[in-house]
């Protein structure tokens, strides 16, 4: 079967890398998922899309924070 913990680790690493390399200006803004396009709905429950955008932004911030030093 060969689905081991190591392959899970590899997959997780690749996913995080994929999220980190999404280009802000060329891609995310064009599909409306930019970091400044989502924050607004504080009076209601955040929907799935805004949660996803938040998640992507957080992952990218954490990854960026580790790079810059």
């Amino acid at each position, binding site marked *: *079967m*060969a*689905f*081991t*913990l*190591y*392959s*899970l680790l590899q997959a*997780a690493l690749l996913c995080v890398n994929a999220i980190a390399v999404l280009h802000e200006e060329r891609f995310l803004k064009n599909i409306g998922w930019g970091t400044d396009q989502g924050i607004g709905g504080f009076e209601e*429950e*955040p929907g*799935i899309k805004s*949660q*996803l955008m938040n*998640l992507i932004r957080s992952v990218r911030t954490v990854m960026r924070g580790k790079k810059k030093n």
Partner: protein
Amino acid sequence: MAGPPRRLARSPQVGGHEVRDLELRGVHGAGMPASKRRVPVSQPGMTDPHQLFDDTSSAQSRGYGAQRAPGGLGYPTASASPQSAFLGDPVSNMAMAYGSSLAAQGKELVDKNIDRFIPVTKLKYYFAVDTMYVGKKLGLLFFPYLHQDWEVQYQQDTPVAPRFDVNAPDLYIPAMAFITYVLVAGLALGTQDRFSPDLLGLQASSALAWLTLEVLAILLSLYLVTVNTDLTTIDLVAFLGYKYVGMIGGVLMGLLFGKVVYYLVLGWCCVSIFVFMIRTLRLKILAEAAAEGIPVRGARNQLRMYLTMAVAAAQPLLMYWLTFHLVR
């Protein structure tokens, strides 16, 4: 030399110590004789609701240490009589006390550091089980259709230990079931002449990887749907670990009686786990009103219902996926 009083006080293998616990606490009929740990001395309604096992923190172990010290001191003197003069010396008494305080400090340091990485105290709650609980829970896993009340009892805002409530999640059954699954997989492979020792590790790793993937996927979807739930990660691991019981049953029956029986037993266990998961998760994920059976309309509740159904439906799929290659 400084060790004996304290080690005797804390070792769980000394049978006489259990009796002394009962005497000290004045417990009336609370104790099921613990098969693996010391006798639990707290009941719901007694003074400390957070006490699962005997408290081995400094205050009480010092009490035990003082209690045991005469016995401890007596023990080396009885066994090593030429050293009795040496032990009676006040300087060596002081040295022993100093050494024991050093040992206590070291123990505190180690405990504090370990607690930072593995929440040991929280894990203790999940292993506070006894034989009756395990029996009832296994019965519930195979036949959840007649059970009426699925709500976990609370006691002053903390959930009651699994020993006292059959609905509470525990980690004992999933851990044991996982290990048994790996062994049964080895057995099944052996009967088909496909066994080699590294395959055991591969099976264990594979099952763990699927479990981790499930936990991550469910945590991600719980985050996306913004469910305010008290379902902790360890709870989730416990619930997801219950399917190993059905898997073991299916594979064993399949080994004994053939493929048809394997499919029958696995099908039965799959349906049981499906119902079990839905009834358990419904109370944790869905809103209060919906959990009581009143269909609450609304997009959010519908989403939560889909999430519960998806989690429950993933269990039979994984049960089949992880066992079908073992029964040929």
